C-alpha cells in the first residue's frame, strides 16, 4: 500500500508541477468567462470613435427621434439627395447616410448607406430608436391614447416552475438548465478524453524509457498501473475543484466590481450627474440598473439549480467513466511501442466517447427521450450523456442503475487492462494485433 502511495504521489506531483497544468488550470475559467461576457460586452459597447451620420428624412418628422450619444451624432440634411452626399462622402466626414423614405410607415424600411460595413452598434441604435418612434406614430394615427400605449407595453419572461414528487415547487429557467447540462456533459467528455490519454502517454513513456522493468522489480505491474490511474485521476479532480472555485470566484468578483462600486455612490450624486451630463449620466445609471438586474436574474435562475447534486454526480461519473476509459487507455499504451501504433486500438475507444458526446447534444434538448435514457444507462456513454440529463432531474432508479452498471463495467475493464498491461509492458519490438491481445488475456500470470 505504501508503495502504491509513492507511485500515486509521483504521478500527481510531476503533473501538477508542470507549467502547462498551472497555466491551463488558472486560465481556463478566465477564458470561459471571457468567452461568455466579452462578445456581448463588445457588441453593446459603443466604438469610442465619433461617427457622424447624415440623415435624409423625406417624412420630415423624425427630427430628434434618434438620440445622440457620445460617439454617434445624427445630422439632418435638408434638401440633399443621397447621390449628392455620396459624391462628396470622403470630404464630408460622414460615417454613413441614413435615408428615411416618405413611405416608411407602409414599407417599414430605411436605408443606411456607407462605404464600409456599418457596426452592429450603430444599426441597433437606429433600429431601436425608429422602431419605437414609428410604432408610436402608428398608434397615434389609430387614435390610441398615450396612457394606454404606456400600459400595453409588455415584455414577456417565462419562469418555468417544476414540481417535484414531494410537491415542492422550484422555479427555474430552461436555458440555464440546458447550459449547465451542456457544460457539464462537455467537461465530462473533455476530462475523460484528456486524462485517459494522459494515462496512455504515461504508460508509453515508461515503456519506451525502459524504466518499467526497473519499477516492477519492486512493485506489481497492477499496482504500478493503478497508481498511475489514480494519480492522474487526482490531477483531474484537482483541476475540477479549482475550476469550480474560480468560476464562482469570478462570478461573485465581477458582481462585486460592477454592483457594489456603483452602489456606494449616494443617489443624489447620481441624480446630479444626470442633471449635469444629461444623456451620459442617464446611460450610466441605466447601466448600473441593467447589471443589477442581470445579476439578480442570473443568480435567481442559478439558485433553482441543484448544484450539490450536479457536482456530486459529476464527481461520481467522472471517476467511474475515467476508470473505465483510463484502464482501456492504459492497456493500449502498454501494448504498443510508439504513437503511430496506437491508431488501430484508439478507434474502438474513441468511437463510444464521441457517440456519447453526440447523444449528449441531443439529450440536453430532450432529456427524457428514449435515446437519451438508454445511452445514459450504457456504461461506455453514460458519464457524458447522464451529465446532460442531471440538471433536468433524473429518476433516482435511473441514476442508481446507471451508476451500478458503470461500477461493474469499470471493474471489468480494470481487470482486463491489468492482464494486458502485465504482458504488454515487457513486450518490445512486436507488432501487436487484437488476436495477440486476446492471447495475453488468457495468460495465467
Amino acid at each position, binding site marked *: 500500500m505504501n508503495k502504491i502511495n*509513492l507511485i500515486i504521489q509521483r504521478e500527481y506531483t510531476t503533473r501538477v508541477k508542470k507549467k502547462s497544468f498551472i497555466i491551463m488550470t488558472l486560465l481556463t475559467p478566465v477564458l470561459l468567462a471571457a468567452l461568455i461576457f466579452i462578445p456581448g460586452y463588445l457588441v453593446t459597447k459603443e466604438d469610442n470613435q465619433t461617427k457622424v451620420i447624415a440623415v435624409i428624412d423625406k417624412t420630415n418628422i423624425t427630427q430628434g427621434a434618434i438620440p445622440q450619444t457620445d460617439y454617434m451624432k445624427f445630422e439632418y440634411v435638408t434638401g440633399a439627395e443621397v447621390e449628392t452626399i455620396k459624391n462628396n462622402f470622403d470630404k464630408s466626414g460622414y460615417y454613413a447616410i441614413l435615408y428615411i423614405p416618405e413611405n416608411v410607415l407602409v414599407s417599414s424600411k430605411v436605408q443606411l448607406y456607407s462605404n464600409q460595413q456599418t457596426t452592429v452598434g450603430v444599426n441597433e441604435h437606429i433600429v431601436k430608436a425608429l422602431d419605437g418612434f414609428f410604432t408610436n406614430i402608428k398608434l397615434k394615427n389609430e387614435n390610441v391614447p398615450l396612457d394606454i400605449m404606456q400600459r400595453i407595453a409588455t415584455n414577456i419572461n417565462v419562469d418555468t416552475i417544476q414540481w417535484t414528487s414531494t410537491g415542492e415547487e422550484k422555479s427555474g429557467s430552461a436555458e440555464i438548465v440546458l447550459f449547465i447540462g451542456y457544460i457539464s456533459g462537455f467537461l465530462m467528455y473533455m476530462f475523460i478524453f484528456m486524462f485517459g490519454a494522459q494515462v496512455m502517454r504515461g504508460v508509453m513513456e*515508461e515503456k519506451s*524509457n*525502459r*524504466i518499467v*522493468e526497473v*519499477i516492477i*522489480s519492486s512493485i506489481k505491474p497492477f499496482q504500478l498501473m493503478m497508481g498511475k490511474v489514480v494519480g492522474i485521476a487526482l490531477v483531474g479532480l484537482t483541476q475540477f475543484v479549482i475550476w469550480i472555485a474560480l468560476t464562482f470566484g469570478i462570478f461573485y468578483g465581477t458582481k462585486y466590481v460592477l454592483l457594489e462600486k456603483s452602489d456606494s455612490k449616494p443617489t443624489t450624486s447620481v441624480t446630479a450627474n444626470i442633471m449635469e451630463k444629461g444623456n451620459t449620466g442617464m446611460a450610466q445609471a441605466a447601466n448600473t440598473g441593467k447589471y443589477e438586474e442581470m445579476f439578480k436574474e442570473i443568480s435567481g435562475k442559478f439558485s433553482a439549480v441543484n448544484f450539490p447534486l450536479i457536482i456530486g454526480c459529476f464527481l461520481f461519473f467522472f471517476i467511474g467513466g475515467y476508470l473505465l476509459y483510463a484502464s482501456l487507455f492504459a492497456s493500449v499504451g502498454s501494448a504498443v511501442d510508439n504513437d503511430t501504433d496506437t491508431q488501430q486500438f484508439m478507434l474502438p475507444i474513441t468511437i463510444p466517447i464521441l457517440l456519447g458526446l453526440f447523444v449528449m447534444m441531443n439529450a440536453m434538448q430532450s432529456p427524457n427521450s428514449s435515446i437519451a435514457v438508454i445511452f445514459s444507462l450504457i456504461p461506455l456513454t453514460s458519464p457524458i450523456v447522464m451529465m446532460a440529463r442531471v440538471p433536468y432531474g433524473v429518476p433516482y432508479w435511473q441514476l442508481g442503475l446507471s451508476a451500478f452498471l458503470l461500477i461493474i463495467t469499470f471493474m471489468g475493464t480494470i481487470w482486463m487492462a491489468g492482464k494486458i498491461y502485465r504482458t504488454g509492458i515487457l513486450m*518490445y519490438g512486436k507488432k501487436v494485433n487484437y488476436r495477440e491481445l486476446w492471447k495475453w488475456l488468457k495468460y495465467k500470470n
Partner: protein
Amino acid sequence: MNNFLTASNVVKQFANHLALDKVSIDVPEGSIFGLLGPNGAGKTTLIRIITQITAPDEGEVLFRGKKMTMEDVYHIGYLPEERGLYKKMKVGEQALYLVQLKGMSRTDGLKKLKYWFEKFEIQSWWDKKVEELSKGMAQKVQFIVTVLHDPKLLIFDEPFTGFDPINTNLVKNEILRLRDNGATIVFSTHIMASVEEICDHIALINKGKTILDGNIDQIRARFKPDTYELKFKGDAQTLRRALDSGIEILEEPTRGDVGHLILKQQRRMPVREMVTAINSTVDIISFEEVIPSMNDIFIRAVEGTNHQQ
C-alpha cells in the same frame, strides 16, 4: 542441497515457443553466478521469474530454502537489460524515488545516495535532468539505485553494456566488493572475458535448457582438450623425432627464433614423461597446459547442442 537461490525444473511456455524447459540452477551463497547463453536462450525469462515479475508454469524458485514471495523482492537488487529512467525527472529526485520503492525510508535513502554519488564522483548530477546525461552516465545512476538498499541478492542483466573500459572496471570492482561484503550475485552477459574474471559458478542455457552448469574451474577442466603449449630453443627436427611416440603435434605457429608447438597428449601419457622427453632434446622456455577460454567453451557447448537437434 541447501543453496541460497534455487530454481528447480522451471517451465515457461509462451504462445508460440517454450522459453524455459525444465531449467534448474543452484546459486551458492556469496558467489558470483554467471548466467550465460546465446540471444533468445531464455536468460531474461528466467531472471524475470526469479524476480517475481512473471510466474513460471511449472517448477519453483526457492530463496534461502523457502519459496520466493513478493516480500522477498525487497532483498533483491535487479538491474534489467532493458533499463531506463524518466527523462524529464531530475537525477537525485528520481534515484530517491526508486530506492523508496525498494522500501527504504526517505532519510536513509538520501544519506546513502549522497554517499554513493560522492563515491562515483557524480554529485554535480543531482539536479540535472536525466535527458542531459549520456547513456553511460545514466547507467551509473541505475547501478547505484540497484545496489543502494544493500540487497542480499543482486541480479545484473548485461551490466557492462554502454560503459567505457574505465567505468566497466569501476563497476566490475564494485561487483567484486559487493560479493566480498556478503551479497550473492547473479549476472548474465555476453562478454566471456568478464565471466572468466569474476564468476565463481556458471550456468549455460540454450534453447530453454541448461546445457552446462557448475563451478567455473571444474567446467574449464572438463573441457580441457589435453593439449599443451611449448616454447623452446633448439632444433625442431630433433624434437620431432623424440616426440614420435605418444605425442601428437597439432600446430606449429612460427614466431621468430623461438620454437613454438601445440602438443596433444595421447594414451594418457604422464606429463612428467612428456617433459622429460622434451627436456632431453631442447631447452624449454615454457610449457603449459592449454585451458580453454570461456569463449571456446561457450561456442563448443552451444554448437554441440544445436547439432544434436
